[in-house]
């Protein structure tokens, strides 16, 4: 089966609720068949609106949404054949687990035997066999969540939408459910559009992540690229931790630029800066800066330790470096650990390729 790279297509979609503010601006997004794509962004960034437009509960103000080449903007939700997992699961509280799962099949007039088979299969997929006669209120949060996933998949939809489905679960359960959903996706190959504001969830589960802010997709790429190579300072800030320096370009060539800070200069990798005199925000991941580096690095500075916080698997060190007291280092807790003490001076080094000069904040 050849995969359609434009299985779901948002074509220049705008959405406004009040005619004054655009919640979604000129959205252009292609989702491939069988892909697990995550819409990630802070609340109010338009990601849920996009999902609701795809599900059919909202209509685009402008532009078209295509599913497998067909325009679906005018098709009502119940004819779209898109499964959906809601934030609060939206299980029907007056129906048993079986009836909940059978609902989409019954409205499609599927035969009784066929319904039994499919419900059974869907329940075994989420390992909830034997729970058929329970009411949703008799299930734990995680079990309800699985029923909701099973219900969205039981009628073999081409696309499944998930709207922050793990938001209400506790941390451990959330993590195990992340893997479970990922495995289900891998085993049945359905196209999943997942909405979350939790970046670690997005990084764990997705093939590709679309970072939303202010009604626009800021970056669409795979998790590794998103983390390692953010294209602008919003993405760098939103995904993972980040040390930033605000400054001005004083010298620039192809893969290096010199950034003038308040009272010093650093070397950085020019990403979205082009010429001298531009303002920039330099972003550096905490784990890319090393203490007393053994090899030669092109940025070497001395900082003073302000705070040391033990985190179990690593230690966070806050430094006063280059006039900023918010510089964070992550030091893995290995056996050869360094003696880190507050108000101690240490040498810090990083490569200019890891310091990305992005648009100014």
């Amino acid at each position, binding site marked *: 089966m050849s995969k359609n790279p434009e299985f779901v297509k948002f074509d220049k979609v705008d959405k406004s609720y009040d005619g004054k503010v655009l919640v979604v601006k000129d959205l252009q997004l292609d989702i491939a068949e069988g892909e697990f794509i995550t819409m990630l962004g802070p609340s109010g960034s338009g990601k849920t609106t996009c999902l609701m437009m795809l599900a059919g509960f909202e209509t685009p103000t402008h532009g078209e949404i295509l599913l497998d080449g067909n325009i679906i903007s005018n098709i*009502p*939700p*119940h004819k*779209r054949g898109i499964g959906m997992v809601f*934030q609060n699961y939206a299980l029907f*509280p007056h129906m048993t687990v079986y009836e909940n799962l059978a609902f*989409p099949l019954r409205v499609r007039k599927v035969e009784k035997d066929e319904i039994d088979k499919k419900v059974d299969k869907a329940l075994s997929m989420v390992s909830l066999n034997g729970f058929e006669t329970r009411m949703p209120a008799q299930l734990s949060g995680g079990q309800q969540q699985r029923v909701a996933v099973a*219900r969205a998949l039981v*009628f073999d939809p081409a696309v499944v939408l998930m709207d922050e489905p793990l938001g209400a679960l506790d941390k451990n359960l959330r993590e195990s459910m992340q893997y479970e959903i990922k495995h289900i996706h891998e085993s049945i190959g359905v196209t999943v559009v997942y909405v979350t504001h939790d970046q670690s969830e997005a990084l764990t589960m997705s093939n590709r992540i679309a970072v939303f802010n202010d009604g626009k997709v800021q970056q669409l790429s795979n998790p590794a690229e998103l983390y390692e190579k953010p294209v602008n300072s919003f993405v760098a800030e939103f995904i993972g931790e980040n040390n930033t320096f605000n400054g001005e370009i004083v010298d620039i060539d192809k893969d290096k630029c010199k950034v003038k800070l308040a009272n010093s200069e650093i070397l950085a990798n020019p990403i979205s800066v082009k010429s001298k005199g531009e303002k920039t925000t330099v972003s550096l991941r905490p784990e890319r800066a090393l203490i007393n580096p053994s090899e030669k690095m092109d940025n070497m500075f001395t900082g003073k330790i302000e705070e040391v916080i033990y985190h179990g698997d690593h230690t966070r060190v806050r430094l006063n470096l280059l006039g900023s007291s918010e510089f964070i280092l992550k030091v893995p807790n290995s056996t050869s650990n360094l003696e880190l003490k507050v108000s101690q001076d240490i040498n810090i080094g990083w490569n200019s390729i890891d310091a990305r000069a992005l648009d100014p904040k």
Partner: protein
Amino acid sequence: MSSETKQILTTDGIPLEVSLKKAEKKNKIKAFLLVAPLLLFLVITYIFPIGDMFMRSVDDKMITNMLPKTFKAMEKWENLEELPPEEVYRSFYEDYKLLAENQQHGKLGQRLNKEKNGFNTITKKLFRQIKRKKIDESISIKEQINKLHKRWRNVEYWLAIKRTAPPYTVAKYLKGIDMYFDSDGSITQVEEDRRIHRILWLRTLEIAFFVTLFSFFMGYPIAHLLATLPMKYSNLLMICVLLPFWTSLLVRTASWMILLQQQGLVNDFFVMIGLVGDDNRPEMMYNKVGTYVAMTQILLPFMVLPLYSVMKTISPSLMRAGKSLGGTPFVAFWKVYFPLTIPGIGAGCLLVFILAIGYYITPALVGGASGTLISNQIAFHMKTTLDWSFASAMGLMLLTGVLVIYWIYNKLVGVDNIKLG
């Protein structure tokens, strides 16, 4: 370890249950004292009057107290085909003489006359004889009384006296369903053209049923709108629903009179738009139509509020889920939304039906002859005929009816499923 055999002890060696009870006792007393005023209030204003009403409705002590010796003597009257023995006559004579001295004989005559026609004449005759001291107590009183009038020689009349002996009677209840004890003591129906109460009961049920139905069909969409509209509009709508609550019932009913009368606003409007001719204005008041319209409007909030409170708790994502799973909007409504509103429907319908079944002012004012309910009949007996025992009997029958409906409802739906908010 089985929990039944092993008693759990606290560290002091006192059984846990005992010590728990002790600890909770203080709280229980406190809680009781808090509700005590209300309890007292309920007993004085509710339980006690109902008890009093019940006593009144079955009370029939008047004759029992007037003829104590007679009824005692009658216990020995075995052959009821024949006239009672001399002893009964003598006791009756003695009782009656005492009543005559106290000027109470008239009441007895009237009351016995209700039991059997013609009693008034023969007791008056007896009274005159006693007044003139024509009765000789030294010889058989039976013979002397029997001579007074042929009716005294009819065993039917003596049986009628005997029937009034018990201090309690259900006659008033029978009257409430158009039945009575006939002369031989069996329960019979009144003639067909005099069965007014049954018509009233049926009409009360019918009107209460349809008012509930109308309120439901009008209240459901309103409640849905209230629960789903944005706050700004739903508050306004809520005020519109509650406004009638804050207006006096009489004012509301009077406004319906202004609207519905033949020269009223609604009729004027119909004439204006040419729906009816000016000389052919329909009667919308002083009949069932008036009762239906006014009662539905007045009871509507009692339907809307429980429905609203239930609908408010139904997450809008449920309907969305229903639709996204492939249900048409109607299927999603019927299979998902509607079943979840049933507790509210139950509460609203029960509330409206029970209120409607005992409704009084509105039907009295706009109902006319064909739109009055059983409660109007009760009020009529309370105020006009002063037959309080009959009014009490009918009031209790109404109360029992309501309790029966509640019981049936509990069997069908379960009271636990009622949600008022």
